[in-house]
């Protein structure tokens, strides 16, 4: 029988059926960080339980780390307590910790793939909703709550229902200046922020075939913003080439059989899906959000919607969004004044994001009055970018070059919006208060669009700013 990748990975990891009908699913790889794990270790201690497979748990620190002054103790004593708790929990339980001095620290969803820990045909869980990122490798990866972090630590399994699968095809070639970020924002705009409830999104089609692993990660990362807890791309030669030679990738004689095994997890050609949707890459333009959820998005040349133009069920949220964003309905989004430009996050903080932007900003300057920061997703990305001269290009252009972490994606470290500042952001969420100020405003967009906003001081079409035809 033809199977999807989800079917195959599920079958390989299903331990048994629990009394309420859920599956006890083996989680092969567990990633942890400082925010959602300390309570889980506390629960473990209360229950007198130990970590069952310490070698299959990997830790890093990302949400609370300052990106400028990184010496410890941190000036924020709460943040300092969190990193120390993670350090001691890892030491006590023999868990590998990519700590600040390791040179391998970074955002958990950037570190996993970079180290070769994220592999096809595996199950991955992490107490963070953007764990869907790892699906770019043909893994089934779940964001989980802290009680489930406890479950995975203690049993290497969790109780979960098997999702249905929606196949999302994107075919054709993206036009110049349009990126993976625009593709996922477009998909969420079309299918809604809760359109993926109970579903896994399988992304495919010629656009995805041509994507690099990093582009696939950008798309899978935001699956959860469309309500889909899991998103994945079938593994192929691009995936294997990315993984070859990485720290935790199979080596020597183990490599070839691993690739054969991985290949076998890809969905069968005639696999059946619970739903299929199709998009043409050529129809997608640079996309920006105008509201307070990632589905409230428009093409850069479109106008901010009027509440009466949106479906009745979305109207009250639209009104709330317009009030929060101080945007005028019916007016172009282009030209909206920008105070802050943030380039980074688990969505767009990878080397290719920085390389692409650097290609266009060389010799140009950030507009006076705009605070522009670049936050590499990991120390690995950072050191490569330094050695390639990218950091210098950003610095010369007037961007602040920071240390690796989640930074301004969420308000858990010193990088925060102030008051009603508007941020052009390459991150994944434009929720009210998300970037640290309850009245702060977020406009999500691709990294190059962030750079265009930084240079012009307003929401701009990067194709015009950089002369891309």
């Amino acid at each position: 029988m033809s199977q999807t990748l989800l079917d195959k990975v599920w079958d390989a990891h299903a331990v048994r059926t629990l009394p309420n009908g859920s599956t006890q699913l083996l989680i092969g790889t567990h990633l942890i960080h400082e925010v959602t794990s300390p309570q889980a270790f506390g629960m473990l201690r209360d229950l007198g339980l130990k970590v069952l497979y310490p070698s299959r748990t990997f830790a890093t620190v990302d949400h609370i780390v300052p990106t400028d002054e990184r010496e410890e103790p941190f000036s924020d004593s709460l943040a300092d307590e969190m990193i120390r708790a993670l350090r001691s929990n890892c030491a006590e339980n023999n868990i590998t910790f990519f700590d600040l001095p390791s040179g391998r620290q970074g955002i958990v969803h950037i570190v996993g793939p970079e180290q070769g820990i994220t592999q096809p045909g595996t199950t991955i869980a992490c107490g963070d909703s953007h764990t869907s990122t790892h699906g770019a490798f043909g893994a089934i990866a779940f964001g989980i709550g802290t009680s489930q972090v406890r479950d995975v630590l203690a049993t290497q399994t969790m109780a979960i229902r098997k999702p249905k699968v929606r196949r999302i095809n994107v075919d054709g070639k993206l036009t110049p200046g349009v990126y993976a970020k625009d593709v996922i924002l477009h998909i969420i705009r079309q299918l809604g922020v809760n359109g993926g409830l109970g579903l896994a999104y399988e992304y495919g089609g010629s656009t995805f075939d041509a994507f690099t692993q990093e582009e696939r990660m950008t798309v899978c990362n935001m699956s959860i913003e469309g309500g889909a807890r899991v998103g994945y791309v079938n593994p192929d030669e691009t995936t294997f080439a990315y993984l070859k030679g990485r720290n935790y990738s199979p080596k020597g004689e183990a490599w070839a059989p691993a690739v054969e095994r991985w290949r076998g997890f890809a969905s069968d050609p005639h696999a059946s899906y619970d739903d299929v949707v199709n998009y043409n890459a050529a129809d997608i333009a640079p996309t920006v959000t105008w509201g307070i959820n990632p589905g409230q998005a428009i093409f850069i040349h479109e106008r901010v919607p009027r509440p009466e133009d949106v479906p009745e069920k979305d109207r009250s949220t639209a009104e709330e969004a317009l009030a929060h964003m101080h945007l005028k309905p019916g007016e172009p989004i282009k030209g909206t004044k920008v105070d802050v430009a943030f380039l980074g996050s688990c969505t767009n903080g990878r080397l290719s994001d920085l390389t692409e932007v650097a290609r266009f900003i060389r010799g140009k300057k950030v507009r006076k009055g705009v605070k522009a920061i670049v936050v590499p997703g990991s120390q690995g990305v950072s050191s490569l970018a330094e050695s390639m001269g990218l950091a210098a290009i950003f610095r010369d252009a007037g961007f602040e070059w920071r240390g690796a972490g989640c930074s301004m994606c969420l308000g858990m470290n010193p990088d925060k919006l102030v008051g009603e500042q508007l941020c052009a952001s390459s991150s994944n969420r434009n929720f009210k208060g998300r970037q640290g100020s309850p009245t702060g405003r977020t406009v999500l967009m691709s990294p190059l669009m962030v750079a265009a906003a930084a240079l012009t001081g307003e929401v701009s079409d990067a194709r015009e700013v950089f002369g891309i035809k």
Partner: protein
Amino acid sequence: MALEKITQVSGRGVYVPGDDIDTDRIIPARFMKCVTFDGLGEFAFADARAAAKEAGEVHPLEDPRFSGASILLSGSNFGCGSSREHAPQALYRFGIRVIIAESFAEIFFGNSTTLGMPCAVMSTGNIREVAGLIEANPAAELTLDLFENKLSIADVDFPAALPDHAREALVTGRWDAIADLLEGIGEVRARAALLPYMAC
């Protein structure tokens, strides 16, 4: 670990209107700088409550008429966004024991169930009707019956259902999966032994 069998939950109600209420709204990230969940209750909807105050309005969770309410009603896609268990933990510690919404985001739903806090789905029309009844009589007691799939208020019943697996887990006292999962450890090891990457 015998857990309480959650079959019926009663309490007064509070309506927090809005669709797509995300977990950053329920508990802003800056309040998550902590190593325990203790004390999170006071930060539930912190920014929304402060914003209402600033605008000269009263947020439902600040309204003395609904003080002590334990059944929260809201709109669709409640709890979307982050996987932070801090969100249901904050609501639970605030005193909420049941959430009624048109729909729930998946991770939030699972996190809440694991705390023994039922999340029941109700139609928008009925949610508004119940909200009207609460507004008219904030002291009215609501009862969610998980066997009967209904929410009762002042002798009026409204359909309010949970998916079978969550309902089963709650009514049988198996809503925290850890005991069941631990029983399967032998099979876990056997399954793991079949997976080459687990040996690394």
